[in-house]
């Protein structure tokens, strides 16, 4: 069990997950006593196969999954009962779902307002992020008229409008081509570096975690099986690359 009392009240821990268990109505055990601590300011990767519990974990933090048992703290705020935790968290889900009645700029501005920003502040922030993500020329375009890559960028931008301190990106490069993947990596590095965000990234791609993440956790069957810096994991499990460590951890 993690020391929730000492860790949850500090700014040094962005996300603290304590004995999180989630069983869906169909009996699927998605999370099985998962424990995790993500230091503030880190770029943290969550690696695991399909069905390991990555999306359920992120959904539990963001409020998209009915309250599991266990506890979750975002910068010391209880993610289930304290609405302030929502203000601190930004989510870019795996599937791209954007409000089709709004333009790209309005998607961002309304998101900011849902999270308590004033209209002018939200619109200013929307313009800023459209520029960062090279979408200014598409500000008045509705999401269904954007390319797949643009929609993906808009989704990530949406997660950042309200200036969260923890950004959770659920497989942001799943199903995208190599060129766009590298483009998204550039955006993510930029945001992490310039805005001082804590980033939680889930991915299937080992090379993505190697390229971006300072800390990595391997997750399997709803539990974290190991975690550490990529070099530490390689050293601990043997092999030459993170991929070798990942495969060894998954087999153990």
């Amino acid at each position, binding site marked *: 069990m993690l020391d929730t009392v000492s860790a949850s009240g500090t700014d040094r821990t962005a996300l603290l997950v304590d004995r999180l268990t989630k069983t869906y109505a169909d009996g699927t055990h998605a999370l099985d006593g998962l424990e995790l601590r993500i230091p503030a300011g880190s770029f943290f990767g969550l690696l695991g196969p399909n069905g390991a519990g990555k999306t359920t974990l992120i959904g539990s933090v963001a409020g998209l999954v*009915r309250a599991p048992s266990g506890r979750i703290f975002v910068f010391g705020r209880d993610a289930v009962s304290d609405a302030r935790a929502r203000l601190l968290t930004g989510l870019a889900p795996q599937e791209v779902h954007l409000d089709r009645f709004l333009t790209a700029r309005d998607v961002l501005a309304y998101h900011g307002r*849902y999270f308590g920003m004033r209209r002018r502040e939200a619109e200013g922030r929307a313009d800023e992020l459209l520029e960062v993500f090279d979408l200014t020329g598409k500000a008045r375009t509705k999401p269904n008229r954007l390319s797949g890559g643009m929609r993906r960028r808009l989704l990530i931008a949406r997660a950042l409008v309200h200036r969260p301190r923890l950004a959770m990106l659920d497989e942001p490069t799943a199903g995208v081509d190599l060129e766009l993947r590298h483009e998204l990596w550039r955006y993510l590095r930029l945001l992490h570096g310039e805005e001082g965000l804590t980033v939680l990234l889930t991915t299937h791609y080992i090379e993505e975690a190697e390229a971006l993440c300072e800390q990595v956790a391997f997750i399997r069957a709803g539990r974290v099986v190991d975690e550490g810096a990529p070099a530490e994991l390689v050293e601990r499990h043997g092999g030459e690359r993170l991929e070798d460590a990942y495969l060894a951890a998954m087999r153990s």
Partner: protein
Amino acid sequence: MTSVDVGLAQRRGTVALAGRETRRVLSLWTQTLLPAVLTALLFLAVFGGALGGRIGEIEGLSYVDFILPGLLVVTAATQAFANTSTSIFQAKSEGYIEDVLTSPLRSWQLAVAYMAGGLVRGLAASLMVALLAVPFAGGLERPAVAIVSLVLTGLLFSALGVITGIWAESFDQHSFVAGVVIAPLALLGGVFYSARTLDEPWSTLTRLDPLYYLVDATRAGFTGFHESPTPVSLIVALGVALAAFAAATLLFARGWRLKP
């Protein structure tokens, strides 16, 4: 955002979502307002104009004067219901409801914001029908009663729409409620007839329909004629609307059919 008071953030978010819903109604006016107005006008033309002369007076009122308040209530009810149920169903089935579900809004604030769009659509459509009917109908005896009654109609059916939007998992389910629940409520609500002239069981069935009280109170507001005491009608309608709002809030709070 950490320095923002969470209560203030929630209030702003509620206003923003209500604004988004209202904007949707107004930007899609050819789909959200025009058909309802045309339907109500056809009812007025056929029953009030073409057949009204043959039907004569009901309870001392011309048939147009008798049915107009009921048509306004039905218009407000069906449009408020259609707006919230469709908007939530679309947001849910297309997945973008996650944007508001991850926001700091409380469950009752989500319900209120969605209901605001339904209320605006219901009242806007009713107002348009009322304005177009002015040349054919009588005056407004007690405007405040009529307005309160129409607002209660909008609130009640907006809340029912929220419940339906959350419940429906397919477009067929969504249509089922509109056809099997809302349409009978409208037809049995005493829009086209006086409940006290009916035989049993129709008279009792009519009085079990919450829409009957809203129609009766609105009719009292427009014409002065009513079958039930107007305060009782308004209290019944308020009670049902509050119950529906509470149910809608509860569904959001539990995440029923919204969250796995």
